[in-house]
């Protein structure tokens, strides 16, 4: 799916240089579910944004779908995002002026799809996330958990191969958080590659693999217990 080699990212603000990522290398295979953990400010979001092609690294290689994309233009990256990547954020980032249905529709309007096709896909995503009954509500009329389900529906409506989630449960209580994790897990089982940033060990447990960062560097990579159990179980 993607491969990162010796990635470097620096920020310069007010003449102060911050090295957000310093020599990161790893690979993610199709169908994997990877969790990224680490203290605040260690570079998780920065890494996720680069993986999500929202940002370019300063140096290093980034292979996405067998192409080197670390120096691609904004336009090329937008096209890759449009077709292959879905995002879920901690703060949901729904558009207040649009209804649930219209929010979910958003990624599709930038693709060349027929109205009929858009409708079908949106319906499918809403069913999947169990929010079809709220389709005409505006975000502010929903609970946090419902909002995040809308956000996930929006992220997957264009059937991306890669789903990126930055602390998707950060703004939710534990019950709703679990609900969201189940959904992500289900999506992963259906074939979507998932990369998720989280602070919660229990959330990380849903993943196959955990990458731990500290000060812009990878400290450990480990396979989760649940995954290990699954790998070792005979029926897998």
């Amino acid at each position: 799916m993607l491969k990162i080699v010796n990635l470097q990212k620096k920020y310069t603000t007010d003449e102060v240089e911050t090295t957000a990522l310093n020599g990161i290398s790893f690979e993610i295979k199709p169908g994997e579910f990877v969790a990224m953990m680490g203290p605040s400010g260690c570079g998780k979001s920065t890494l996720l944004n680069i993986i999500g092609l929202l940002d370019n690294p300063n140096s290093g290689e980034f292979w996405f779908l067998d192409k080197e994309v670390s120096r691609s233009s904004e336009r090329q990256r937008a096209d890759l995002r449009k077709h292959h990547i879905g995002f879920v954020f901690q703060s949901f980032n729904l558009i207040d002026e649009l209804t649930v249905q219209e929010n979910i529709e958003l990624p599709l309007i930038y693709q060349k799809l027929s109205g009929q096709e858009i409708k079908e896909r949106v319906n499918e995503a809403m069913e999947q996330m169990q929010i079809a009954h709220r389709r005409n509500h505006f975000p502010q009329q929903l609970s946090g958990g419902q909002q995040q389900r809308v956000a996930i529906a929006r992220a997957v409506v264009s059937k991306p191969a890669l789903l990126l989630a930055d602390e998707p449960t950060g703004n939710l209580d534990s019950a709703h958080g679990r609900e969201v994790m189940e959904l992500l897990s289900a999506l992963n089982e259906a074939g979507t590659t998932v990369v998720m940033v989280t602070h919660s060990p229990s959330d990380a447990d849903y993943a196959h693999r955990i990458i731990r960062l500290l000060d812009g560097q990878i400290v450990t990579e480990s396979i989760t217990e649940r995954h290990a159990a699954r790998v070792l179980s005979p029926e897998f």
Partner: protein
Amino acid sequence: MLRNYLKIAWRNLLRHKAYSAINIIGLATGISACLLIFLYVGHELTYERNFPNAEHIYRVVSRVNFHGEDDRFSLSPKPLADHMRREIPEVKKVTRLAASKKQTVWKDQQPFLEDNLFFADSTFFQVMPYTFLAGDPVTALRAPRTIVISDELARKYFGSVEKALGQPLQFSRNQHLVTGVFKAEKHSHLQASAFFSMVTKDEAERTGKDAETIAAQENEWILFGYYTYFTLHHPASLPAFKQKLADLVQRRAVPWLKENEISASMELMVQPIPEIHLSNDFQTDISPSGSQSYVYIFSVVAVFILLIACINYMNLATARSAKRSREVGLRKVVGAHRSQIIGQFLGESILITLLALVLALAMVELSLPVFNELTEKQFALSSLLNTNFVLLILAILLFVGLVAGSYPAFFLSGFRPVEVLKSDKNPRGSNAWLRRSLVVVQFTISLVLIIGTAVVYSQLQFLKNKNLGFNKEQVLALNLPKGDSLFQERLTVFQQELTQNPNFLQTATTGNIPGERLARLLMLVEEEDGTEKDQTMNVMFVSYDFLELMGIELKEGRTFQKGIPTDEKGAVIINEAGVKWLGWQNPMGKRVQVTDYDAKVIGVARNFNYASLHNPIEPLMIIPIKENTGYLLAKIRPQDLEASLTFLEQQWKAFAPRHPMDYFFMDDHFNRQYQAEEKMLTVFGYFAALTILIACLGLFGLASFTAEQRTKEIGIRKVLGSTVVEIVLLLSKDFALLVLLAILIASPVAWYGMKNWLQDFAYQVNLSPWLFFTAGLASLLIAVATVGIQAAKAALLDPVKSLRSE
């Protein structure tokens, strides 16, 4: 995609009602002002367009130079038309037109005064293609005492167009047979209500004269009394025609001038009729002409007003950009290209402009009555419905939509999702600098207009209050009917009758009055060394007691007196400027001969402004006349004006039942020379008010935005003990500085521009710094008040609430 854009635009509009209202109202005001101005400008630029092929109808105009003094007339010499027809083969048709004085028309024993009457050759309608509603344009004016009238006149006197044809129209002295009715043409330099046949005039001028006199009269090349219109067989032969016209002058006019010992040079020029309205460099034009420079000024003002409105939109949109940044970031995350986002915001601004346009059309409709009064035109909303205007409206829509929308579109679409989607922080609400500069631009434009208005106003006040060297207050002038000998004889009695009334202090008759165009006549004057020389000078024909009534002072000598035989035989008074111009050391007793009037100078009048203050005082010869023509002046007491007028009316009815009373006040009449400036003042005033209104609307929006952004800060300050006044000052200070900066920029610009405008006047008001100071202070106060309201609102919020709400 479009549906999604529209939806979000619409919902944003509804959600932020105050912002939307400010935007839409501001834009609508700008657009409506713009449309009104373009209606006016469009009208000014399309004169004569109702005449087919108007650009190929021409008029001959003249430039005459007597002794280095250039005179430009829209009139041409009397013999010209005839020679053009016979000697220049390129000419297809040439025709003459002459103006007639006001005349009285009778209907059911009732007199009506008619203006805009002309004499026209029978070929006139073949050159000027008026639409005939009845009669034959080719033959209508062939016979003497025939008349072609406008449909308006036909309806007024005969009830309908059809009934008018073949009917006599009764004038004071004789009847004229109506042989045609044309459609009145208001959109023309020639706003005629009727044309008499030229042969009527010719006959009148010939009666009682022998053949030799008539022939000489027909060949007077210096008699500029006719408008000459013509068409060519081929428009392309215009250059050839011009050459032949110049040859004609050399061949005919020059020898004639030499023969008659008139040292003048003459040049004839050609003017396509659509150019007449906006060219005001010719004297004796038929109707007051328009002004090219006002057309420019108004167009520029229109664009500026629109620009100010656009700036409001830009400023409010970018100030609020933080609110839209998340949406932009998100759209980019899901793969929208920057161009698509630009498209979205441009579409949004076009949508808003569209709404503003609809509102603007309603505003135009509402303001048309006032506007029509102002411009003395008859515009209707339907005049906007022709192709040109629909195109213009589309252009405005695109211009505003794109100009106003492009900056926010490019600004907003530049947001990087990584930054704007960070959960906690608001993105930089930046570009405050650009916003500030744009506010300065707005206020600079407004201030230039405000200062301009103030300068025009004070100049007009100055013109009206300037001591003219004569007394124009409380002087009433009556137009005396022409050619009624009975009335002439009884005039003295009438005057005596009037002065019986204590309200009528003094009366006098006069041929000319100040503020009227005077004739410039050729005269023979005695030099210091006793020799004689040809000169041309303005001439004013007056009665004996005119100078006294007008309060014109003498520097030397005496005024005309009844009973002094030499005055009856020949006496003139010259003004100071004339003495200086002629270089006389000793003006008294100098000989002056004007045509066959042989006179001696008996006095020197102090300079008085007999013409508009656009011009310096020119040399003037004042000549007494015995017959009562022109005007009867009456100096009346300011008290009981109403009663005086009633008394006058009664007396007039008794003395001149055959003539409607036609009077005016001297000061009004004189001030009418500044009509163009008055109009400019009103228009400037309105538009200056509009621009400041729109600019303040934008400021209001910006201030409320800042107040909103700083709610928390204000809350903290209040908790820490700031007073409301301190907070209002804090919030207003920034904006006040911007307005101050605008004052600094606008003042020199306005000073320069208005200095230029004042060049039109020989007498100019002083541009005092106070004027600039007052205008600046006024707009500063308005701006601070606007901002202050918002600031006070924010400052009065309960700090506990505003701090909790975060």
